Structure formats: structure tokens, C-alpha cells
């Protein structure tokens, strides 16, 4: 029986495959306007995404200076040069520091605000707006404001830290090699908390109330409910936020360009900024493209690791 069915199936698929092709072509002709509707997207997408991705790889194998006519093919030289470039390693390290501290801190502070707002406080809408304003503020503007806040002589931060006795003397936030990166991280948390908060608020609202009621009957206290119900059920939101924030954080550029220019002593020179310098200041576009591909590889690996790490966790 089993054999007959499988043979019949095989014969059928053979006949069908020919019929299928015909049917597909007929469908394609009949639904031609579907392809027409997609064509604007398709044109832009194939030029500026698909072709661009391949072109970028092609450039990365060349000595590519837009000011010079000949583009010398150098194979993998740009990549090998990258691995001998201490400045590149430092930029990778800086990027990891910026992301490794900034993203978890941003997620934690956003979650905290969301949890506080979710306790049915009065004026939830107003608080939400106030925490969200830094998110919509243009990054250029935020960078200008924070540049002032971090000013050594007149900056507001030093004034209040001195006033409350937290520091003894004025700190040169952005000019101090040890403080510049923490300063950028703090600003990043300020700019990112609101976005995280909104997502977590949406996530919190989708947790059914009955779960909490049931746990109350079982005698769970507030902290236990947070650890055993709220945080696990927010895992999909956390996962989404983690991936998008890491990708975003890895590409930081604008505020570094405006606030520190990668300094002092290259301590805030992140990959995004170093790439800009190589590509558009020194016109070494091949080298910068190689850097972009390495960045892509790092992000891809991190994303896959996060996926694997979270998959074991989010199963209900």
C-alpha cells in the first residue's frame, strides 16, 4: 500500500510539475498588476539594497579612492590590513564597551519606568510624554545640549554634582579619556529609555490579569510575581529590543561626530565613526567597506547568539 501511494505520488508530481509551471505562468500573466504594484519598491530595493550590498563587497576588494581614476584590485588586503590596524581594534573595543554597557542600562531603565507607570499611577500619559521627549529630539540637538551639560567650567552636571557633594572638583567629562565613554553611555541611556519604555508598556498590557490573580492566591509576593511572571512573559519584547538596540548602538555616529570627534585619545572612536573617517575623510572607500563588512559580520554573529540564547528561554 505504502509503496503504491509513494509511486503514484512520484508520477503525479512529475506530471504536476509540468502542469505547475504552466499554471504558474498563467497565474503570473493573470496577476501581472501585482508585479506592477511591487515595481516601485522593487526598483529602489534592487538598486539601493541588493546591488548595493554586492557592490560594497566588490569595493572592499579594491583600493578605491574616488579622486583617482583607477581602482586597483587588492583581493583580501583591506581585510588583512584591518586586522593589523590597532586603531580598528580599539574602535571595535570601544563599540563593544558602548553597546555592552549602554544597551543593558537602557533596557533596565526603560523597564523600570514601564513597571512604575504600569502600577496605575495618575498622570500616566504625562509621565510617558516626558520620558519620551528625548527619543524624538533630534540626535544633533541632544548632542549639542549634552555637550553643554558636560562642559567642564560652566556645565550643569558639574554644578549639581558639586552642589550635592558627589564630586570634589570639576570634571572634564568629554575631554577626560576615562570619562568620555561613560559620558556618552549616560547620554545614550537618556536618549533611549523612552523608546524601551513604550515597548515594555505595550508588552505589559498584553499580560493577562488572571495570571497575577492566580499567583496571589498561591501567596506570591510582588517581587516573586515580577521575577516569575512579568519578566519571563516580557521575553519576546526584551528579545526584540535587544536585537534592535544592539544593531542601532553599533552604528552610532552623529553624537560622536558632534561631541568628541572620536577623542580623547581615540577613546570614543567607534566603528561607525572610524568608517566615516576612512571612507569620507581619507577617501579610502575600499578600506571603509571592508570595515562595514566586518561590522556586519559582528552584528550577524551577535544576533544569532542572542537568538540561540533566547530561544531556549522563550517557550510557552
Amino acid at each position, binding site marked *: 500500500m505504502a509503496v503504491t501511494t509513494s509511486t503514484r505520488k512520484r508520477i503525479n508530481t512529475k506530471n504536476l510539475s509540468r502542469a505547475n509551471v504552466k499554471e*504558474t505562468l498563467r*497565474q*503570473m500573466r493573470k*496577476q501581472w*498588476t*501585482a508585479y506592477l*504594484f*511591487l515595481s*516601485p*519598491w522593487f526598483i*529602489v*530595493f534592487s*538598486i539601493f*539594497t*541588493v546591488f*548595493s*550590498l554586492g*557592490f*560594497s563587497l566588490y*569595493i572592499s576588494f579594491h583600493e578605491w579612492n574616488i579622486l583617482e581614476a583607477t581602482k586597483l584590485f587588492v583581493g583580501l588586503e583591506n581585510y588583512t590590513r584591518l586586522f593589523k590596524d590597532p586603531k580598528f581594534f580599539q574602535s571595535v573595543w570601544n563599540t563593544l564597551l558602548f553597546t555592552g554597557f549602554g544597551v543593558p542600562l537602557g533596557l533596565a531603565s526603560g523597564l*523600570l519606568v514601564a513597571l*512604575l507607570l504600569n*502600577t496605575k*499611577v495618575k498622570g500616566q500619559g504625562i509621565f510617558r510624554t*516626558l*520620558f519620551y*521627549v*528625548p527619543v*524624538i529630539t*533630534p*540626535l*544633533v*540637538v*541632544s*548632542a*549639542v*545640549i*549634552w555637550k*553643554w*551639560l558636560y562642559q567642564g567650567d*560652566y556645565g*550643569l552636571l558639574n*554644578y549639581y554634582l558639586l*552642589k550635592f557633594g558627589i564630586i570634589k572638583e570639576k570634571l572634564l567629562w568629554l575631554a577626560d579619556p576615562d570619562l568620555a565613554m561613560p559620558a556618552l553611555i549616560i547620554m545614550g541611556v*537618556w536618549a533611549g529609555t523612552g523608546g524601551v519604555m*513604550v*515597548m515594555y*508598556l505595550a508588552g505589559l498590557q498584553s499580560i493577562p490579569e488572571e495570571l497575577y490573580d492566580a499567583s496571589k492566591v498561591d501567596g506570591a509576593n510582588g517581587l516573586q510575581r515580577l521575577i516569575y511572571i512579568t519578566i519571563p512573559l516580557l521575553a519576546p*519584547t526584551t528579545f526584540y529590543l535587544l536585537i534592535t538596540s544592539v*544593531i542601532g548602538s553599533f552604528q552610532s*555616529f*552623529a553624537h560622536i*561626530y558632534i561631541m568628541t570627534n572620536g577623542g580623547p585619545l581615540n577613546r570614543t572612536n567607534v566603528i*561607525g565613526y572610524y568608517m566615516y573617517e576612512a571612507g*569620507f575623510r581619507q577617501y579610502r572607500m575600499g578600506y*571603509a567597506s571592508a570595515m*562595514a563588512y566586518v*561590522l556586519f559580520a559582528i*552584528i*550577524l554573529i551577535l544576533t544569532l547568539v542572542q537568538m540561540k540564547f533566547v530561544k531556549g528561554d522563550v517557550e510557552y
Partner: protein
Amino acid sequence: MAATAQEKELRQLKPAAKSFTRPMLNFVGKLLVYSLLITGAILFTAPWLWMLSASFQPLSDIFNWPPTWWPEHFTIQNYRDVLKAVGLGRWYLNSAIIAISVVVGQLFFNSLAAYTFAKRRFPGRDKIFVFMLSTLMIPGVIFLIPNYLILMRIPLFGGNNILGEGGIGWLDSYWGLILPSMVSVWGIFFIRQYMKSIPDDLLDAARVDGASEFWIYWKIALPLSGPALAANAISTFTWNWNEFFWPMIVLQSNDLYTVQLGLAMFFVKQRTVWDVVMAGSVMATIPVLLVFLLFQRHFIRGIALTGMK
């Protein structure tokens, strides 16, 4: 008997004890929640309020120590300077032209593609869709250099011949900022998720009546997707208004600068004129702030929806 009496007593006591501690805890808890929220809100808005306050103060007052939060010598001279001497007005116009063109283009092209992916059956649909979505994982910086070079080689623009040689193509023009952003994968995906919930019966009924697909899209699907379109429009506007990196790479002439680019370049060149820069910063934020405050509901719902795919 004695035990039962004790139990009874306990049972009576327990709720009493509970109702005694609970309001206390609630009161303390509430106090904690509100004080944390208020402290947080002050910390998060202070930088922003400082910018607003400083923009109305003469330069010498901005350097006051301790800082003056309420302007002692209120002035609007900074705004006059940033508009006249610096030329923010022109940059404003550029930003508006670019952001509005992109929003209009995206609303049309995104929704057209979204309708096709959500409501039409045609060979290859799911494969194309998955392929499209997979590109969302690619970091944007990877496209900067190739897209810059592609723009430079657009034929018959910016002094280029038909082979795209000799000139600068779409670089240093509105085109380079508008056309590559005319349609976005995020927007298509987002609107498509929303359009999926439109009942097929409705569309099929129109098809039976002989309506064209474009008519169905334009007259049925589009009007039913208001919230998704609003969210897409608002986030696209905000993104394009705030964008800095790409305009900086594409634009060269001062006359074509966007607000963000102009402000940043001015600031980088003249780091001491904090009064004018603060006024410029307020001006650069007003449009997105207005859009956000007016459409806050759509905005937040939109952001929340994107995360809950």
C-alpha cells in the same frame, strides 16, 4: 473546642491584620513609585528645559554660575540671529521639502506594495516577502559607501552623461535624499500586517463586481488602513527630519543643507556661540515635537505594534 475558638479568633484577626498592613504598604509603595517617577521625569526633561531656557538668554547669562533656569534678561535676539545671520530658514525649507516628499512617496508606494503582499495571490509572493524581510537585519552603514557611489553615477543628472560619467549625479541635490527613501521595507511590513486584518470577503465582493485591483486598493484597502498609514507617516517624518549621517554625506552646498546638518556644521565650526546654537536647537526640534504631541496616540501605538509582530 478551645482550638476551634482560637482558630476562629485567628481567622477574624487575620483579615484585620491584613487590612492594617496593606494600606500602609500601598501608601509607602505609592510614595516610592511617585517619587521615583517624578525624580526620573525631572532628570529626563531637565536637559531639554535648559536648552529652552538658554535659547532666551543672552550669551553672558548662559555662562552664569549657578545657572539661571528662569531667564533674567529675556531676549529673542538669538532666534533673530539664527534665522537671519545663520540662514536656518533656508535649511528649514529644505528639511520640509525632503521630509514631506518622502512621507507622501512612502505612504503611496509602501501601501501599494503592502496591499499586494497582504491581499493578492500571485506566484512568488511569499518568497519575495521573506527575502525582503531578511534584509532588515543588515546594518544600514553598509550601504553608505556603495549608495554614495551609485548616486554619483546616476545618468543624465548633475552633469553626468548617459553612462553616468563626468558629473556628480544625484549627489548634492534633493533627489539623492528623496528618491532612495521613497519606499521602505519597514513601512511595507508594518502596513501589510495591518491590512491582513481586512476581511477578504469585502475585497472578493468588489472583484466579483469587476473592480480593478487598483480601485480596490485605492477605494477599499487604503481607507481602512488609516491608523497604520498615520503611524507610518509620523515615524517616517520624524526619522527624515532628524536624520544626520546620510544628508551629511550627500549634501555639499550650504544652500541645500537640512536643519540638522546646518545646525551641526555651524556648531562644529563655531563652538562658542551657545546662545545662537541653543535657539537653533529649539527650532530644529519644534516640528517633530509638534507632530509627536498632536499625534501621540498613533505614534505610540505604531511603535508598540511594530514590536509585536
